[in-house]
């Protein structure tokens, strides 16, 4: 690979990425424009985060205060009770672990399935290719609510209702499309010469994919992982139908039980919801660089 003069997509993206040497110079100048941008940036950040700040404030007050009329922005009584309640509840921890197990596993499964398919459709022309790609996009068009009966019937017949397996398979199937779409772009962006060199060296197709192609598309893989993880983390309807045991429900389904028609624990609901956001945001913070590089690389020559 190093023998070719081809730049890897990640290198390429870094070159054109906004955080480049030139921009460091600009930053040192601290022009009024830069200050303005930072101020604007924090306004944007505030706009996006502010609803969730209200949510945080609601989680920090007693449940009875959440629907106060007129509302008060700051809690009259500050309390961490909701967070303590939620975290100390073994059932909540069950939901959290279900979500983690299901999201991580189905994300891995999506990658295992989508990478070969993306590679192949990006590199080869074959009969049925058009139909395959159409099938992929049509899978996205069905509302989960309309498919859930069929999914339930199937897993019931297979004896898989109320198992992680059923959820993992479903989440994986519904998220192949995006991963495949993104990854296909990355594979296609790698010049054919890179691959041909590896094949000439005697590597098989699969080995070429794993040892040569995959490292070059790492940012793409990271991108697909993020998108898939968020999608599976937030899935609701299918999990609601398939999972029966209280402790096997994922977070999305579990936390909705904090507010029922007869009893409303608003602050618990919001505390739990905030905790549910945290893993995703942390994941995001860790790979944000790669994500942008990732989406970029597919388009960079």
């Amino acid at each position: 690979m190093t023998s070719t003069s081809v730049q890897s997509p990640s290198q390429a993206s870094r070159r054109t990425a906004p955080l480049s040497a030139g921009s460091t110079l600009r930053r040192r100048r601290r022009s009024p424009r830069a200050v303005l941008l930072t101020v604007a940036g924090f306004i944007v950040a505030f706009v996006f985060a502010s609803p969730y700040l209200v949510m945080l404030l609601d989680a920090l007050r007693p449940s009875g205060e959440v629907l106060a009329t007129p509302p008060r922005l700051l809690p009259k009584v500050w309390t961490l009770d909701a967070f303590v309640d939620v975290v100390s509840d073994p059932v909540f921890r069950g939901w959290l672990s279900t979500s983690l197990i299901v999201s991580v596993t189905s994300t891995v499964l999506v990658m295992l399935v989508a990478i070969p398919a993306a590679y192949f459709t990006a590199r080869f022309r074959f009969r049925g290719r058009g139909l395959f790609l159409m099938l992929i996009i049509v899978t996205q068009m069905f509302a989960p609510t309309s498919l859930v009966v069929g999914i339930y019937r199937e897993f019931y017949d297979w004896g898989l209702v109320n198992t992680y397996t059923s959820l993992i398979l479903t989440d994986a199937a519904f998220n192949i499309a995006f991963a495949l779409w993104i990854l296909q772009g990355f594979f296609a962006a790698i010049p054919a010469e890179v691959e041909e060199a590896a094949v000439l060296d005697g590597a098989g197709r699969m080995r070429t994919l794993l040892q040569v192609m995959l490292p070059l598309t790492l940012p793409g893989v990271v991108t697909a992982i993020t998108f898939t993880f968020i999608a599976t983390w937030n899935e609701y309807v299918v999990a609601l139908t398939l999972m029966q045991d209280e402790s096997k429900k994922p977070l999305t389904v579990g936390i909705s039980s904090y507010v029922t028609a007869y009893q409303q624990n608003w602050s618990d609901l919001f505390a739990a919801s905030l905790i549910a956001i945290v893993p995703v945001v942390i994941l995001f913070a860790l790979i944000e660089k790669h994500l942008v590089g990732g989406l970029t690389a597919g388009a960079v020559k």
Partner: protein
Amino acid sequence: MARVLTDAPSGTRLAPARAPKPSIGGRASGPAPSSRRGRRRGANEASGWQALLWLSPALLLIAAIVIYPAITLFSTSFSEYSITGIRKGDAGFANYAGFLSSPDLPKVVLNTGIWVVAVVAITILIGLALAQFLSKDFWGRRVVRWAVIVPWAAALVITSQLFRLLFDYYHGTINAVLLALHVIPKPIDFLGNPPLLMASMILVGVYVSLPFTAYLFVAGLSAIPTDVYEAARIDGASPWQIYTTITLPLLRPAMLIAVVLNMIYVFNSFPIIWIMNGSNPGFGNDTLITYMYKIAFKSAQHDVGVAAAAGVFNVIVILIAVIVYVRLTRTRAENPS
């Protein structure tokens, strides 16, 4: 039809003729420019059997988890069901007739049109601006990027619930703030007044669709080689000219993905409408998706057969919408004048 759709994600055919470089989608699909085709011709052909080998895991999973239930949906739509869900027999086209003749349908279709077009269009416009902004280099940009991601990371059910509280007439923070600032003399009934409700739902729809869309555009932007810009600048083009003649055309593949995916996701979006419209009577604020759910479980029809017909109808509607959009953009891309 297949051509239209399958070329959509791969983008090549849609890439502007004079700027073939950036393409988020695959290069190998569709009739590629001849130079590239020539370079790759040898490796590009594969037999159906080889394809089956590489694609079978994906195919199997999709066949089992998506196609089989889709067939179930289809057969349900031609069956007659009791209110409890017992199959009573064949219904022929009665479910479809029942669905298509329901007096609320025109209003629901109109709502769906407004909802999808408004959310997607506004999301795309703001998303473009936001992406432009997020691509600039400034101190604290990482933090801003994390903040932008939060609405995407949060479960939609919860975000909708949160906004329902924020918009509430009596205990909503938004009304409280507006009252405190003396912008309004009395609270606004955001959730009970149909036009305001639609506007509020669109706002939430845009808000949760922006992160995904903006990041797609951020990627598209950073893919544009800087030398193109420099050349334009030397030619004396204004920033707006540069944006419209270089940036936008080069963003077209990302735009295609953003529009198509957002169309599908927004059309199928359930929680925002279900929750924010949750205390209103009738079907005057529903979209096709929530209407389908109400037919199945919450209306006097209470009929899963009719709801399944609605489900099939919905898939056809979104399929047609996507095809129309892709055809339109393709025509435009081929005739840039």
